[in-house]
């Protein structure tokens, strides 16, 4: 029997465009493939995606396998699983990654069940154990209080879903070369036992806090809903969006869509500003991969300062109005220009 070899990632498209989470997967996949000295392939299903597939090469894939068919335009678990499963059984990758999106978290357990192999959910860290060539899959457990590292010693492929925004994509390198393979589609595999009857778009269900470069997040230390509401103006003036701790959401200061943390969304912005957030394990698990973290809190021992690059010990009741006043006064003229 052929030995399992190679790293595969399951790309995602929405409305025929490659979704950026695919590039995050390729960044993970690239380092694993390089660690194992094998190739990195991206499997993607959709309709009219062949042209866009070049992006996947530029972001790190050595080969892209495309299933392109009108009936694959929207994700349906039955045909996606049948097509992927056939390919996996034929080529036997040793590792298969997908994003922990509603698609990845639906298709991967079904594939793992059929293939009789292990699957680890919502990983935030992936590495190769060099002595055994095994995938080390690390995920937060028990509300982010501990990190558990899991491996799949003898079943293949080793499967994991990866939490979106747990890693930045590599910059596109248009000079990279790779192969784009349009896979043959056996139309008898396209039937679905579940049919789509309709779709109601609701963009508030999207991931705007996940896409923002600057996140201004508030927590219990703001103490009042009115002070929390000031964050929206600060965020607007700084070109950012508002995030919230679980406590702030529980208080009704912000809707759940703004919640950052294991129980909400993971974010990885360029700058994360935590105001009055003490830094529970649940919260830290959702933002500690930000490029730069600035924390303002009145408690110098707050755990948030351990993950922050810049810490200011201040009472938000003084700090926030003063900051807002300053932002209102001088928007960019004498302060805050590019450095």
């Amino acid at each position, binding site marked *: 029997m052929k030995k399992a070899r190679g790293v595969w990632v399951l790309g995602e498209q929405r409305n025929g465009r490659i979704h950026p989470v695919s590039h995050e997967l390729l960044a993970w996949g690239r380092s694993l493939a390089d660690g194992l000295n094998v190739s990195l392939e991206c499997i993607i299903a959709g309709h009219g995606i062949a042209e866009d597939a070049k992006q996947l090469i530029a972001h790190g894939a050595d080969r892209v396998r495309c299933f392109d068919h009108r009936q694959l335009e929207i994700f349906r678990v039955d045909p996606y699983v049948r097509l992927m499963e056939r390919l996996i059984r034929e080529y036997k990758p040793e590792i298969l990654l997908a994003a922990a999106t509603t698609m990845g978290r639906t298709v991967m357990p079904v594939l793992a069940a059929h293939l009789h192999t292990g699957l680890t959910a919502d990983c935030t860290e992936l590495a190769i154990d060099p002595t055994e060539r095994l995938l080390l899959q690390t995920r937060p457990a028990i509300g982010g209080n501990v990190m558990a590292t899991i491996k799949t010693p003898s079943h293949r492929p080793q499967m994991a879903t990866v939490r979106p925004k747990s890693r930045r994509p590599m910059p596109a390198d248009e000079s990279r070369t790779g192969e784009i393979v349009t896979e043959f589609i056996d139309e008898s595999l396209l039937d679905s*036992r*579940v049919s789509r009857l309709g779709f109601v778009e609701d963009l508030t269900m999207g991931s705007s806090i996940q896409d923002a470069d600057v996140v201004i997040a508030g927590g219990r230390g703001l103490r009042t809903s009115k002070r929390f509401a000031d964050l929206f103006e600060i965020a607007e003036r700084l070109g950012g969006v508002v995030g919230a701790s679980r406590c702030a959401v529980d208080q009704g200061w912000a809707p759940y869509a703004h919640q950052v943390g294991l129980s909400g969304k993971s974010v990885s912005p360029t700058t994360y500003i935590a105001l009055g957030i003490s830094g529970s394990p649940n919260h830290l698990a959702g933002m500690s991969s930000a490029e730069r973290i600035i924390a303002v809190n009145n408690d110098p021992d707050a755990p948030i300062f351990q993950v922050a690059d810049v810490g200011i010990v201040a009472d938000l009741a003084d700090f926030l109005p003063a900051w807002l006043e300053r932002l209102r006064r001088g928007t960019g003229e004498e302060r805050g220009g590019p450095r």
Partner: protein
Amino acid sequence: MKRILVLVKQVPTTESVRLNEETGTMIRTGSDAAINPLDLHAVEEAVRIKESSTEEVAITVLSMGPLQAQSAIREALAMGCDEGILLSGREFAGADTWATAYALVQCIRVLEPIDLVLSGERATDGETGQVGPMVAAMWDVPLLTYVTHLACDWTQLVAHRAIEGGTEEVGCRFPVVACVLRDLNEPRLPTLSGKVAAHDNEIKVLDGNAIGADTSLLGLGGSPTRVVKVMYPSFQRNAELFHAIDNGVGVALDYLESVFTIDASQTKGPS
């Protein structure tokens, strides 16, 4: 008669969960345990379907765990489910999601015919959300994930699924597995008579043989995954602290601006 199976899990209610350092599996013998909160929505939906259905409906609650997990099943019985089954025995201990789904599906095959299986989207302890989809896959029936609304007339199940960017309406035939979110409904509180009935209801406890399982596929031994390390997360950026309380807020803001500058061209003015 139609039959609904609700999958429930007993989870620790406090943060005092301990891990077995050898196996990396959770130690669940503590007394602070309850039915997984999302499973209550699955139970509630089953009871609502039973109440509104023109056909006769029987609801079975199925769980896997130590004998203490019977109390989680009793919570579901008190809300209006008819019977409870617990898969229990040493052979099930330490199961990962694959081995758990295998055991549950073996039991489903013993219980068949079953028309509808409901489960919470994920449990608050493991947080994988994998068992429901794996049950659908091994049982080979349609799968609905992220369900926020169900309409069941026993010829077709229509569901709303909350996915990125909106809500999808889907339909499928029975039998089917649906994994539900908390938006689905508001779970009822058990009535006193419900609690009494649940207390008197004898929960069937089945072992690996009773469900005809290949014991090599159960528990830790049947699990493809292994927890190899458990550690407390360390984040080591350790900011140098600037004390506004000593230096004044104005100086603190100067300091903030010295480390965090915004590109003025991207800064939006007041609207």
